[in-house]
């Protein structure tokens, strides 16, 4: 029972990290059909932002609180710059954006190596987040993982509310559902695209801050995470967030359970096979927007 619960919670916490990363991707991929491989480097930027802030702010707790909004803005700004400089020119060629942003991510990784050095760096976690929460029955939950779960859920809630209730959210949904119709209705689609990119990239920055609580940060930390996060978006279906939420936790639990029953490497293969099998059933992902297009 304890072991089962432990595995379940590990899975959920893997899922929470995936979710934080995938939310931003789901936004940009869903709205603009753009595959942003540099998303992983925006995560890295968020993580290094935390590291830099800790150099000047000695209190680990305060620096974490400050890092969250700052990392959001830093990563978001990088995203907007990328959108303006490159991605805007490539909206008709989604596969090419994948390669172009891969090139950008290579350069950003090397930049991080030149600025911060190749070895990984470590940040200090606040005391509050280093301990465990004891539950009845001898179960424990690590505080930092609980924090990340809360952060992910808060991000989902905030994003959902923003999309549902604000004028900006309404415009974003309109562009996702039918770009041309939104444009003729007077919605400035180019500006909406830029805003969405800011939000999506900013969420990557938040994910980066969260990841500093789990381990060291290094120039290639994003590459390993980005593919899993993309799988979440692919399986979850684009255009809606709920698919990503469900799939992120499902993949996390599947990964943790597979790891427990076999090994890490076999678990990865199991997850891959499960995804291909799932796409046989629902090739467009778990939830899709109904459109009349042939795609």
């Amino acid at each position, binding site marked *: 029972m304890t072991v089962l619960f432990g595995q379940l919670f590990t899975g959920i916490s893997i899922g929470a990290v995936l979710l934080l990363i995938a939310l931003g991707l789901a936004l940009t991929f869903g709205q603009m059909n753009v595959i942003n491989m540099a998303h992983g480097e925006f995560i890295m930027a968020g993580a290094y932002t935390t590291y830099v802030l800790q150099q000047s702010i000695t209190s680990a707790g305060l620096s974490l609180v400050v890092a969250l909004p700052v990392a959001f803005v830093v990563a978001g700004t990088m995203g907007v710059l990328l959108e303006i400089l490159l991605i805007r020119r490539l909206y*008709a060629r989604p596969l090419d954006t994948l*390669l172009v942003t891969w*090139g950008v991510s290579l350069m950003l990784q090397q930049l991080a190596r030149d600025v911060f050095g190749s070895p990984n760096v470590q940040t200090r976690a606040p005391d509050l987040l280093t301990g465990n929460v004891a539950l009845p029955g001898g179960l424990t939950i690590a505080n930092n993982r609980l924090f990340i779960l809360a952060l992910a859920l808060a991000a989902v809630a905030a994003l959902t509310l923003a999309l549902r209730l604000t004028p900006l959210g309404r415009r974003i949904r309109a562009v996702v559902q039918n770009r041309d119709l939104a444009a003729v209705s007077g919605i400035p689609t180019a500006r909406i695209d830029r805003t969405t990119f800011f939000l999506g990239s900013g969420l990557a920055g938040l994910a980066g801050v969260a990841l500093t609580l789990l381990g060291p940060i290094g120039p290639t930390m994003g*590459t390993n995470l980005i593919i899993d996060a993309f*799988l979440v978006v692919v399986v979850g279906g684009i255009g809606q967030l709920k698919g990503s939420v469900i799939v992120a936790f499902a993949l996390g639990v599947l990964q943790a359970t597979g790891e427990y029953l076999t090994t890490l490497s076999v678990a990865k293969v199991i997850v*891959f096979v499960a995804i*291909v099998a799932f796409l046989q059933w629902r090739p467009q992902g778990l939830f899709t927007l109904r459109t009349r297009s042939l795609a």
Partner: protein
Amino acid sequence: MTAVTPAPPDTAVRQAPAGAVPPNPPGGRSRLRAAAGFAFGAALLFAVAPLVLSDFRLALLAKYLCVAMVAVGIGIAWGRGGMLTLGQGVFFGLGGYAMAMHLKLADAGPGGMPDFMQLYGQLDELPLWWRPFASPWFALPATVLLPMAVAFGLGSLVFRRRVRGAYFAILSQALAAAMVILLIGQQGTTGGTNGLTDIQGFFGYDLDDPVNQRMVYFIIAAVLLALLALARQLIHSRYGELLVAVRDGEERVRFLGYDPASVKLVAYVVAAGMAGLAGALFVPAVGIISPALIGIVPSIEFVIGVAVGGRATLLGPVLGAVAVAWARTALSERFPGTWTYLQGLLFVVVVAFLPGGLASLWALTRHRAPGPASDRRGWSPLGRRRGDRAEVPAA
């Protein structure tokens, strides 16, 4: 597929605008030109290169030519078929590991075990799935058939359910990630991160001997030329035209009564076979195969050479792959950090601003519109892709 339509003269080296059906062949000139180009390439590879280059440089060239073989396959699958496959390293690796396993077993002698297995010391005898590779009659076909089988399995599942575009690219990349993690995880039987190293013999020939290294180079050059000939036949066949049609308007091809899934599957499987063969020949040329050579990063690096050279052309991918690999060696020897920036810049500049690759520059000098691959998003019922200028009629 057997009925080969002779192409017009110019398409022997580069392609007509995307989607355009080549006009009726003016005669046998295109074949003549292709044969002349082929002979020129053969002379360059077989006579000039061995005379001009030192043994060391020739061995490097052999390595680049293996990468070029992968590039020929990517040119077909991505350039002509529109399937951006970011997992060619998997097929390269399958071919490479199949060959390396055989060579390791041959080095160890009958009944022997590869050195690394004794090193890790957990195994008393050869694992079951290693055993067939002791026979060259199994291992050599397996270098090509194994990748093709994997590609067939994944492709038939995925294409039939119309998983395509970015979804397919991500899946192919995830396959590469899973394969590498599996190889590293099963260290006792796969050599883990180190891979299979220190391969000394190649069917009885000592690979340390420069003469034998030269022989390996000649084999690789011959295979590359053969693959190019095969690719040319494929591109200029009726199948090749169908493949381009699927790339530019999959639904329209479906409405015409063809099955786009099968068309794509053939291209994907052929590309996988070429990558497998390349991996198999890479092993005797370099003496090692390891997860670092086949993972996500090398897989995507295979693609950049193709993009630089010109994805939809026959020779572009080969020249691009060799040029990028050469530049990598030349620059990373001296400035390791700079090369990463340059490589990133190459991705950005070429793909964003020169989607037809260097071949399109060549084509511009001939007053022809280059033919970059299009994507579904730009498809419109009017027959023109959004943002396309009116097609320049072929001169």
